[in-house]
């Protein structure tokens, strides 16, 4: 392909190819502080291709291809090429990841203890993790958490955080402008802006952590906390995993070990500061 970029994110190396330079240029700036993949060995390939040859120039239209594809998936406008690249990488992970149990969850770590946050998008898990990352925690990921089935540890996947709509302003108030990508308007999810994790998160992206708390946050509700029963956690986490079934017995055992060893709470919160306060309280209790 005409243009190429290799990216290392946590334990996963991607090779991205593109018919246009623009998406990869933006991606390269966003991922500038990240280390290059070692030995140029890549786990997954993503290709941004024109839907038809002439669509490289006329109303440029980006089809997402790669090792794993969704046939007949609708292409995206070139202005959203950055988003196409991100969706391409998500897709490779969702369909192709066989080494780790993939959980759709955000995660952050402090003092060796990791908190796993999962729930519907809009529940605030990405924003909470990003904020914790600016308040003394290490951001491990905003979208995917990787559970090592052998060791039971969580591995980071600290990609550029995908902030949507209201969350953009929240993070712009806390984070230097150089760490943001372009503002993408009119996407199917509204306005999107990507944020680079801080240097600590990037520098420690090879470091795993022991999961210590599973949280199901829900934004926009009066504050409430409840313990979540093990069976419900099991069901929710299988639904939050794209490769649980593929992993078979190892997935079953890994998930049960996670649930047996880690408390789970559902929290409703009216604003992020309340949630952060709750998380800090839990952390202190766990440390005691």
């Amino acid at each position, binding site marked *: 392909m005409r243009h190429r970029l290799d990216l290392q994110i946590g334990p996963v190396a991607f090779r991205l190819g593109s018919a246009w330079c623009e998406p990869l240029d933006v991606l390269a700036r966003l991922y500038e502080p990240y280390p290059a993949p070692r030995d140029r060995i890549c786990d997954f390939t993503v290709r941004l291709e024109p839907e038809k040859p002439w669509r490289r120039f006329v109303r440029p239209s980006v089809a997402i291809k790669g090792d794993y594809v969704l046939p007949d998936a609708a292409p995206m406008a070139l202005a959203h090429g950055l988003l196409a690249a991100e*969706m391409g990488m998500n897709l490779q992970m969702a369909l192709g990841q066989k080494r780790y149990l993939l959980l759709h969850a955000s995660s952050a770590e402090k003092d060796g203890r990791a908190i796993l946050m999962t729930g519907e998008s809009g529940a605030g898990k990405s924003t909470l993790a990003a904020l914790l990352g600016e308040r003394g925690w290490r951001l491990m990921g905003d979208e995917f958490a990787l559970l090592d089935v052998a060791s039971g540890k969580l591995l980071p996947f600290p990609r550029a955080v995908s902030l949507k709509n209201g969350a953009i302003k929240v993070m712009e108030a806390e984070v230097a402008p150089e760490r943001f990508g372009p503002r993408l308007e009119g996407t199917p999810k509204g306005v999107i802006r990507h944020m680079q994790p801080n240097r600590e998160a990037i520098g420690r992206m090879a470091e795993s952590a022991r999961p210590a708390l599973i949280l199901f946050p829900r934004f926009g509700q009066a504050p409430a906390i409840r313990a979540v029963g093990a069976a419900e956690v099991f069901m929710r986490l299988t639904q939050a995993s794209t490769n649980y079934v593929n992993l078979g017995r190892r997935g079953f055992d890994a998930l049960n070990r996670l649930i047996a060893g880690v408390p789970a709470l559902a929290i409703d919160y009216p604003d992020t500061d309340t949630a952060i306060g709750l998380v800090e309280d839990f952390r202190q209790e766990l440390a005691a």
Partner: protein
Amino acid sequence: MSGTDREEVGGEAAGGRTFVPSRRTVLVLGAAAASTVITVRPALAQTAGSVLNCEIPVPGPHAGGNYIAPDGNLVPPGTQGAAPPLARPLRGEEAKQLLRGSTPPGVNPQSSQAYANYIRRLQSGMSGFTCYASLQMPR
């Protein structure tokens, strides 16, 4: 709700030696129509097939029985004006119909706007996101 002891029992039919539980507990058998077995399905139902055959559950499994308000948000069951969960997931083709303003067969026309807005609000990670993602971008 299980009120059972989880002891091993065997050899009953052969009149053999079983250990007798120290207390009898009530075993809830469930109504004939009830459901007691849920099979964990792959989260991306359409890994190999065409997007037109992918499935979007409305709402997704996290909804916990909630209903869908006309703007597509989840609300408690029985909220006035809210649409109930769909009995079966929508196929990609049916979701496209909804998004275009028509009503696929088997869907209550009065609820179709709620369902359409729910699908529009679908974001990454919920069941059906990837299917949805491939439906929406204008060509």
